[in-house]
């Protein structure tokens, strides 16, 4: 029952995050660059709910974004699913108790996500290659995401362990012993 509730909360959070990204962060920019809070959200899901949930939610949320605003169905979906998988895998190697590790994971995920999406768009949509501008935007976006992770990290940690205990259950113990 509690598991179902968690999944419902995750979906509601996604809707809130979408609205935040579309309405608030489109105005609250650093030099005209928005952060990408979907990546932070996928990192959170991957870390605390495991890579299976990370991939599933990545695909579902990605399809929703692609249908609503994307140019081709599937690109965002693949990229978000990969971020869910990467963060789930990183959780097994690194401890998420360290703020620095989470920040590093956040920046790596942002960079990987945007590069992946850019390459896929280049291959599928034949977009123009503007490497310098891309690096500039990506750098600002990564810094923005890191700042946001610093701000929401206490909340991530607090809710994350609750969710982890419920979703992963007994599996969690085998990691440490």
């Amino acid at each position: 029952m509690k598991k179902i509730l968690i999944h419902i909360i995750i979906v509601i959070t996604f809707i809130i995050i979408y609205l935040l990204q579309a309405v608030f962060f489109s105005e609250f920019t650093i030099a005209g660059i928005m952060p990408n809070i979907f990546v932070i959200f996928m990192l959170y899901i991957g870390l605390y709910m495991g890579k299976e949930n990370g991939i599933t939610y990545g695909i579902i949320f990605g399809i929703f974004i692609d249908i609503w605003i994307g140019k081709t169905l599937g690109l965002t979906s693949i990229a978000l699913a990969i971020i869910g998988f990467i963060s789930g895998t990183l959780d097994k190697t690194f401890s998420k108790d360290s703020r620095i590790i989470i920040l590093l994971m956040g920046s790596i995920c942002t960079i990987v996500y945007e590069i992946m999406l850019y390459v896929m768009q280049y291959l599928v949509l034949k977009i123009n290659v503007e490497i310098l501008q891309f690096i500039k935007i990506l750098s600002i976006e990564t810094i923005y995401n890191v700042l946001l992770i610093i701000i929401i990290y206490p909340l991530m940690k607090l809710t994350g362990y609750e969710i982890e205990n419920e979703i992963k259950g007994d599996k969690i113990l085998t990691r440490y012993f």
Partner: protein
Amino acid sequence: MEKNKKGGIIGVIITIIILIILVFITNINSENISIIENVANNIVMPIENALTYLKNKLNNNDKFFENIDELKNENSSLKQENSELEQKLREFEIIKNENEQLKQQLNLAEKYSEFTTVPGTIISRDISNYSKTLVINVGSDNGIEEKMTVIADEGLVGYVISTTNKTSKIQTIIDSASATSCLASSTRDTMICKGTIENKSQLSASNIATDARIIQGDSVETSGLGGIYVKGIHVGRIKKVNEGSNKTDSYAIIETAVDFEKLETVLVITN
């Protein structure tokens, strides 16, 4: 443990402050800078005046002020005259703007009179830094189909890439996946205008013929080639021409006629 928690909260607050400062500093425009300059001037000006007065006194330059009353009177009458003139100037500016707007509307009405259009309001913008698609509140129920041209009062916006019953998705001309076949209005030279990821009001025009005579400031319109855009729709103006090391590398920067940041309503050409 308690100390760590406190440190964490302080860290979060500091980060929030840094973020807010960063957002404000990077989005500050020249208008705001001039306000800051004015404030600084108002603070510094009395001190500067006092110092100048003192310097004049010391150098016996203060004979200027002997007929100070006369000067004051003259100054106040000039000020009044100046404010009257400013008022007149403002009135003229308003009339001039109105005149330009009316002229533009008249031209547009004549120019696009042969098209049947459906108006739509933008309900969503792209959430990514790298693409610039829009969603409008009219769909197949209103007769909108894929590949229909979308315009605004000022000029070309893009084309419809997909529709649902009530909504349509538009790929704008400033999207980096967009390529629009255009021609310069006066010289009739053709070019391909592509969107860039960095700028929301500029296009990069390439594939310019080696013998083309591109003029800065010239108007650019759609050529009708490619089968998507209707011919003769205003795209923007040539802002800059960059000559490459050889003629084939040259490209031009086009300033779009439509201000995509402020765009709210569009027209979809249905015929």
